[in-house]
């Protein structure tokens, strides 16, 4: 882009000095510059949208392999986005806020049947029961507490 710009500058100064016929060259290069800028910004914006979707999917801590793909500025943007989102969610209502990343689907029943996909160790439910999550073990648990484990891929919802 700098190359294009410098060529343009030369032509502009020449035109200002009175030489005719270079104007279309200047316009063409300017159009190229603007198009390049637009492509770059579109690419950046799309990446940011993907990162934003990850926040809603995975929560505020991203898996390691995704973190490796983010540039430093994107990680910075992600933590800023996290902060604003957390501030907003905390400020809803008067009782300490509402976590908007839960409850993505309408609830069909209170308890759901889940199968554990990998060893996760002990898991304590809200009612105080401690459940050992071993690979391929099936459990009947309250939906609200399994949701985030399902999204992380540790539990699998059995549908049939």
């Amino acid at each position: 882009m700098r190359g294009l710009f410098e060529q343009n500058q030369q032509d502009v100064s020449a035109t200002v000095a009175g030489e005719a016929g270079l104007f279309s060259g200047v316009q063409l290069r300017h159009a190229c510059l603007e198009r390049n800028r637009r492509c770059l910004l579109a690419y950046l914006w799309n990446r940011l949208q993907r990162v934003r979707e990850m926040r809603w999917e995975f929560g505020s801590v991203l898996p390691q392999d995704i973190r490796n793909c983010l540039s430093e500025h994107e990680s910075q943007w992600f933590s800023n986005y996290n902060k604003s989102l957390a501030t907003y969610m905390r400020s809803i209502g008067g009782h300490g806020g509402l976590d908007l990343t839960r409850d993505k689907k309408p609830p069909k029943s209170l308890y759901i049947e889940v199968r554990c996909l990998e060893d996760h160790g002990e898991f304590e439910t809200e009612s105080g029961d401690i459940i050992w999550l071993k690979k391929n073990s099936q459990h009947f648990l309250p939906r609200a507490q399994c949701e985030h484990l399902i999204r992380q891929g540790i539990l699998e919802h059995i549908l049939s």
Partner: protein
Amino acid sequence: MAESSASIEHVISDDSDMEHMTAAEVLAKLEEAWLNEKFAPELLECRTELVECMLDQIAEMNKNIEKAKKGDFRVTIHRIEIDRVRYVLSSYLRERLQKVEKFAEHLIEEEGKRLPDTASKLSPEELQYAIEYHKSIDAHFKQVALRHMPPNLQSVDTKDTLVKPNLDHFVFLRVNERTLDDVDIDGIETLTLDNHSQYVMRYRPIAHLLENNAVSLI
């Protein structure tokens, strides 16, 4: 919600009048606001009072559940109800947040032009969020790309990046209260919308009818 032991009355201020509503009515209004928000192409007016009322209700119900003895059948039913209400609330607020993010620049501009006595579409927290979001995206672009570009291209013109809601989007609607005569379509023709019937048309001509609940989107 009508099965909770007492119909909990909440005071909801409606302009200058004070109106008492039962929990069931608040939930019905919230569901309507939720559906309208889902299908409208632009951000609708903020109903913070409904949100706060429902959150209070959920806290009440949680307290009641803890007091009840374990194994009581009604506890399960209340829990399911709480889950459902929480889903509607979350979905409503998520829809609004998505629209705030999409139209952030436009909304901030509108907010700046708003007269002091007209109601704002954004709650103060949403406005704060919109400003922060817009700033962070701008800063990101500047840091990563625009800094390195030739000087006359470094500022992005706002009218190029402005995303305005598409008010000509077609929507399905149902007329609620009474037959609406003289609905003005762009000054070209006037339509009569009959009571309890359903129509599909562009959003722009009927936008103002959503405010007083004369129509609802489906």
